[in-house]
Each structure stands twice: as C-alpha cells, then as structure tokens.
C-alpha cells in the first residue's frame, strides 16, 4: 500500500486541499457526471486515501485518475493554491509503476523513444503525408481518421531547423532558444517559420539547439515518468546558455516551466527561464518592438488552451497579439476542448463530446477563423470543425498581417 516512486504526490501537496469544493463546477469531468470521483476534490482525496493506505491503487482509483483531462481548470480557481497538475503527474506515474502491463510499457516507450527521435518523426511524417495524398485515410480506424482530419497538410520533407541561428538586424534584445518539439517541427513547420520571423523582427536572436528533444510533456502526463525525466535532462543540457527557452506549443512551454520537478538540481541551470511565445510577442507589441497593424481583418475566435490559461495563467497575451494583427478577438469559453494530449486517443468518447461542444460554440461566435496557441487543441478543433474554419496559431496570424502590411507598403 501507499506509493512507491519518487514522483508520488506528497503529503504537503495533498494536504493543501481543504476540500472546500470551489473547484467542482470548473471541472469538465465533474460537469459531465456530477460525481465526486470525477472531481478535482475527489481525485485529491483519492490520492490521499492511497497515501494513507485507506485504499490501494485499484480499478476505481485508476479510473478516477485516468478520466481526468489534465486540463488544470481546477488550479486557478483554487484559493488554497493546490498544485493539482503536479499531483496528477505523480498519481499517473504511480499507476504506471503499479500496473506495468505490455500496452502501458509500449506507450511509455513510444513516448520517450519515438517522440524523442527526429529520424522516427521524419518517417512518421512521410507516412502521414502519404496517407493524406492517397485514399488510405478512408480505411483507417475511426480514432485515427478523426486525428487525420485534424492535421494540416503535411509536406513530404521539412528541412530541419536544428543547429541554426537567426540574427536580428540590430543588437539583440536577448537570445532565445526555440524548442522545435517532437512533432511540431515537421507537422507545424509554418508555426516555426512564423515564430522565428516574428521573434527576429522583435529583436531576439533565435537559436535552435541541435541537441534538443521532445519536452516530455506527453510522457509525464501519461505516467511514463522515468522517460519524461530523461527527455528533460537532455533538454536542460541542450538549452544551456540561452536567456530564455521559448516554445510555441502551450503544452510544451507549460511543461518546460515545470522542469524543476523533472531535472535533478545541478543538471538544470540556475537561470532556467521559459516563455511561451505569446508572452514574448505580446511584450514586444507592448514595448513597441513590434508594430500594431491596421484593424479591419474581422473577427477571430480565440481559443484558450488549458496549458496556456490554467497552467501558465497566460490569458491576455494572445488577445494582444491578435489585436495587434488587426483582428477582433472573440473569447471562446475556456473549458477544455478535449484534446488533452493522448486523451483523445485513450478516451475518444469524452474527448469528442467536449470537441463537439467547442466546435458548436465557435460556430455561434460569428468568427471566420480560429486562433489556438497549442497544436493539440488546433488538431482537435480542426477535426471537429470538419474544415469549415481555418485554425491557426496567433503568431502565424500576426506574421501574415505583418507581411501583408509590408507588401502593401512596397
């Protein structure tokens, strides 16, 4: 009984929950079932029950913890500041350690070795591009099919950015290291291009360290803690020397900000500082390092990724960027869209229910396009909007507006 791994939720983390219940209505799974077992308070109490040996890591506990989206909507509303996301990762690590199982180990291996390997990612990208260009998608199983619908059109090969440096045309404000991520590089190549262009324009020197790898968020969220730790250590070394590590996927920036939990003390530099790209770009707009462009580009539905809003409390920055790009942002209810990393594959029913609700809300918003600062959400939204609306990263929209403005002046 009790916990076995060093990742386990600790007594002090758990006892910070005073069980007031104020988080309940903000939890999407509680809203679906109305059950205490599917609420943040219930999950924290369950984790404490295991810690105290009241129950073991049994079926009910596993289900309670697996059903959680990891959206962390329970965190910003908790006056007691319970670090729920951390305890969830710990509980998932414990479940993995306890259960083992071939499938679970296979998943852990994929998440560390595949996502961490550029070669395998290239092969997967090639295969996906092939599927997109042939009729193969039609015979794929339902879960895969809806995933494919969410993808951008993928190029056969994307030239690697690793090892390159991009200099601004003046003395740099700071040097930032761009995380290219596991799948972002090949699948969201345009987001990287826009990110680099906008950052350089804002006066940053952008380096793309070659020793970097997947941030490890997906592994950490799934309980593959050892693998997540190894990935984190590699990145901690690869990004040494930059002023900021910057990521353009909310899930990645949130996880990079949590590296103190994942990297042993001395392996992480003391000035490990991480920014989501929306923070850097919004700052630059506000400092006047990036221009505010003319308005009149219409309404854009602004989706708030959970790992931006709840995990990093980044709420206003995407709006600043979109307004600077000349759009009128319309906020979409911040409840989780159901993508939630691998959740959409592991629990397709809950995931699509939330995805459908989100799509309906976007349709009602009167917007012509959608902005999302997280690739997972982007895919989920595109998949559920079945091609009705373009879905893009706010920084991409800003970059487009910037080049339109440059062209019209030329």
């Amino acid at each position, binding site marked *: 009984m009790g916990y076995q791994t060093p990742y386990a939720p600790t007594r*002090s983390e758990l*006892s*910070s*929950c*005073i*069980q*007031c*219940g*104020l*988080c*309940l*209505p903000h939890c999407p799974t509680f809203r679906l*079932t*109305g*059950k*205490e*077992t599917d609420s943040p308070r*219930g999950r924290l*109490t*369950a984790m404490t*029950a295991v810690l105290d040996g*009241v*129950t073991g890591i*049994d079926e*009910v*506990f596993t289900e*309670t913890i697996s059903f959680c989206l990891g959206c962390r909507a329970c965190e910003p*509303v*908790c*006056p*007691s*500041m319970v670090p729920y996301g951390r305890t969830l990762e710990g509980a998932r690590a414990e479940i993995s350690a306890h259960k083992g199982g071939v499938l679970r180990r296979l998943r852990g291996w994929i998440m560390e070795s595949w996502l961490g390997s550029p070669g395998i990612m290239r092969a997967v990208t090639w295969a996906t591009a092939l599927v997109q260009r042939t009729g193969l998608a039609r015979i794929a199983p339902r879960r895969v099919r809806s995933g494919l619908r969410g993808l951008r059109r993928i190029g056969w090969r994307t030239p690697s950015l690793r090892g390159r440096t991009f200099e601004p045309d003046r003395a740099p404000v700071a040097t930032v290291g761009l995380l290219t991520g596991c799948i972002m590089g090949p699948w969201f190549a345009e987001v990287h291009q826009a990110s680099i262009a906008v950052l350089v324009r804002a006066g940053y020197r952008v380096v793309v360290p070659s020793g970097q790898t997947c941030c490890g968020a997906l592994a950490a969220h799934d309980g593959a803690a050892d693998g997540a730790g190894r990935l984190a250590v590699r990145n901690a070394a690869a990004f040494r020397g930059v002023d900021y590590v910057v990521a353009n996927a909310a899930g990645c920036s949130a996880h990079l900000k949590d590296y103190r939990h994942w990297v042993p003390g001395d392996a992480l530099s003391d000035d490990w500082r991480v920014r989501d790209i929306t923070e850097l770009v919004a700052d630059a707009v506000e400092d006047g390092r990036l221009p505010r462009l003319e308005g009149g580009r219409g309404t854009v539905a602004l989706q708030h990724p959970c790992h931006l809003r709840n995990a990093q409390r980044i709420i206003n920055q995407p709006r600043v960027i979109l307004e600077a790009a000349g759009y009128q942002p319309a906020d979409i209810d911040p409840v989780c869209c159901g993508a939630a990393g691998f959740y959409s594959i592991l629990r397709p029913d809950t995931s699509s229910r939330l995805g459908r609700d989100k799509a309906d809300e976007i349709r009602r918003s009167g917007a012509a396009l959608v902005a999302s600062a997280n690739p997972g959400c982007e895919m989920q939204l595109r998949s559920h909007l079945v091609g009705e609306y373009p879905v893009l990263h706010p920084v991409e929209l800003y970059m487009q507006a910037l080049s339109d403005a440059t062209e019209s002046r030329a």
Partner: protein
Amino acid sequence: MAATLTGRNTKLRDDLIRLLGAERVMDSALERHLYAKDAGVYRGNPTVVVMIETTEEAAQVVRTARRHGVPVVARGAGTGLSAGAVPEVGGVVLVTTRMNRIEEIDAENHTAWVGPGVINLDLSRATTPFGMHFAPDPSSQSACTVGGNIACNSGGPHCLSEGSTVNHILALEVVTDTGDVMIVGSGAPDPVGLDLRGIIVGSEGTLGIVTRALVKLTPNPPDVRTMAVAFATIEDAAATVSGIIAAGLIPAALEMMDQLMMQAIENWLHAGLPVEAGALLLAEVTGVTEAVEAEAEMIAGIAQSNKALSVQVAASPAERELLWKSRKSAFGAVAQAAPDYYLHDTVVPRTRLVEAMRQVYEIGQRYQITMMNVFHAGDGNLHPLMAFDASEPGRLDEVKAAADELVELCVEKGGVLSGEHGIGMEKRHLMPLLFTEMDLDAQARVKDAFDAEGVFNPGKVLPEGSRCFDFGRPVPEGAWV
C-alpha cells in the same frame, strides 16, 4: 432504524442497481470514502452512494432504503461545513447533482422551477438575460446547490438586505419518508394554512428530500456602488458599521475582514487589497443612481469620521467582481496559513461586535490557534477561521474546544448558534445552550411528524435526548408534554 451500518450492504446495493443501473450506484471502498465527508471536518461512513436524476427515482430510493432499514442522507455539492451531508451512521447517500435542470423561468412573475442540483451561480447566470438573479449568495455560490441552500437556509453577503434563502423559496416538491411526493407552498406569496415550506427550508435534509423548488427571482438593481474601506483597527471598522446602521442605512451588503485574512487572499488573488491595514470593510449599496450615489457618500463620510485610512470605490464591474471574489474566497485562502481549517459561524448582536472580536482573538491566543476573521458585519454574523495542523496529536480536540468556547461566548452575548451554515453534527451538542427542553421537544415532534422512523439524515440537528420520550426515558420532572 438500525444503529450503525458502516459496512457494505450488497443486497441493498443490488436492489439499487436494478433501479438505477450500475453506473449510478457506487459502493467501492474508495467511492464510499469520497462521499464520507463534506467541506467540514467530520467524516461519516456511507453504505452506498446513488446518483438520482428524477423525482420518481428519489422516491424509489427512499422506499428501497426503508425496506432495508437503512437511512437516506441527501447531498448536493458537499460544500456544507457542518457535516449535514455526512452519513454518520451509514446509509444511502442520495446525490442530486444530476437534477440540475432549470425547468422554466417565468420572467413575468419573477419565478423559476429548478432542480435541487442546480448550482446557485448557474441559476443567477441563467436568469441574467431576464434582468434577474437568485438573491441568496453564499460565498460558496459558484459551487453549492440550490437544494443545499434550501436545506441549510443559506445566506450570504447580500442577505443583509434580501434575507436568507427562506425568503426566496415559494414552493417545494418533497419526497417524504414513505416515498410519496408532496408539494408544499405555492406561487402565492403568502400561502394559506400551516407554512410547511418554511419548516422544510432549513431542515437540513432531516424531513424529506427536496426534488424541485419554485424559487423567487430578484430583479437586478439599476445601479450599484461597491466600496472597500480600510481601517487601522477592527474597532474603527466596527464603529463604522454601527454608524451606518444607526444612520438608518441598509446597505445591500456590509462585510469585514481582518489583516491576516486580507494577506492570505491577496497572496492568491492579487486583487490589490490594502494589506497593511488592520481591517477592511466592504460595503455595497444598490438602487437608482441618485440614491446610490447619496448613500455611498454618506457611508464614506461615516467611515472618514471613524478614522478610515482609505475609501476606494470600484470603478468598473470587473473591479467590483474582484472585490467580491476576494471576499468569497476567504475560506479557501486560509489553507495557506496551515493545512487544516475550521470555519465557525456564530452570531452576536451587532452592538457587541467589538467586544466579541476581542474575545475571539483572546481565545485564539490561549489555544495558540491562528484566528483569521471574515464576517457579515451588517448582521453580526461572525466567521472566525481557525487555521491548524490536524496531524499534530490532540490538536483537533483543542480546536473543537476552542470552537465551543466561541459559540458559548456568542450565545452569552445574546447571539445565536449559527448564522447560516446550519447545525448538522457540528453544533448539535450545543443546541441546549440556546433552546430549553421544551423548545427541543417541539422540534423533535416536528421531526416525528414528518419522519417518525428516522429515515432521513438521522442524528442531525437535534441532540440525542431532544424528545422527552427519547430512548424510552421517562418524562423529565416538571416537563410539560
């Protein structure tokens, strides 16, 4: 009813599964553990937990439980602080969260039929387009259910002017101890006959299960001013409260918090509270613009004459919301001071606020318990919050002893046991402080009239021995029955 039923009861469970399906019946060790407690400190032991969706299901659950000789304990969101939803002696925990339909809003008559599981704030949000809201606004309003509000007769900051829940309930559909369904009250503001509705409201789940409610909706005020006034001392703030009331003003809300409380809230919310001040008074006035402005000015004047350090008026709806959010998150923020907290709820006459406060701090010092204070100053409803660490041996007992002293102190000053959180298990043993044997007996007989066999929430509210015939004891000498 059987005395204690702590273990599982598979026969009962199987009957309930036949009724509701397996997804809605929970009795694993972990599930029972999660439903053993509300937001307070006591823990019970559920036999089985059911999620009901309709009135008919609630009635059938009651009949089934009764057949098995097991009590029924209703539960909404479980934000109660007095263990009302805690199944002390086991029983079926009947959860209403899925009965969360707002059935119909009658905009003309300002009423709505709602399910008991509707969340208080959801109801006000749903009625905003009609320019109305549900007036009771407990600090837990974002989470607690209308059913829970009814059962506890809950209040909130705005109950100073609007009154507590009982003033906002017109009729109730109730499942009785026999599993029948009755409607008490009606759409009429002053129904004829005995006011059973008024008896059910505040009965903490001991008389029946509320399955629908006809609630009164309150028109949103045309204008509002919310002000935060900082003082060097609690005394100055309390003097201001007395001054405001003496001037004949009845603000919509009048709330106070002390410095420790402000600091804890500010740490989380960054609302810009004046953390260097000794006390903060939140005052809100509502009405037509001219009146609101005049009243706000009068309050500011009274505050100034009582040495206010600063008077800040919320400039936008967002600022107002932030001020209220800070007030309403007070309880949660306490955990930053220590892992456990015990929130008290007592009332003293407003005139004795200052001396009561002084004694509250004194009790805290004596027991070495951090006392943080936030309260409905307008009606003398104190909420001393004790922050402590329950893992220290013997600490919980000390805290409970301190809590009892607090209550005794308030009753001594002519106050009452509970402002709004209810009696539940928490204050059951203190009832005799306030009520005579005859009072208690009258209450016990009401209970018997509704629920002679004790199906509903046994052991709550009334202390053992309330009935003059309780447990076959002879009538106490001199008692009049």
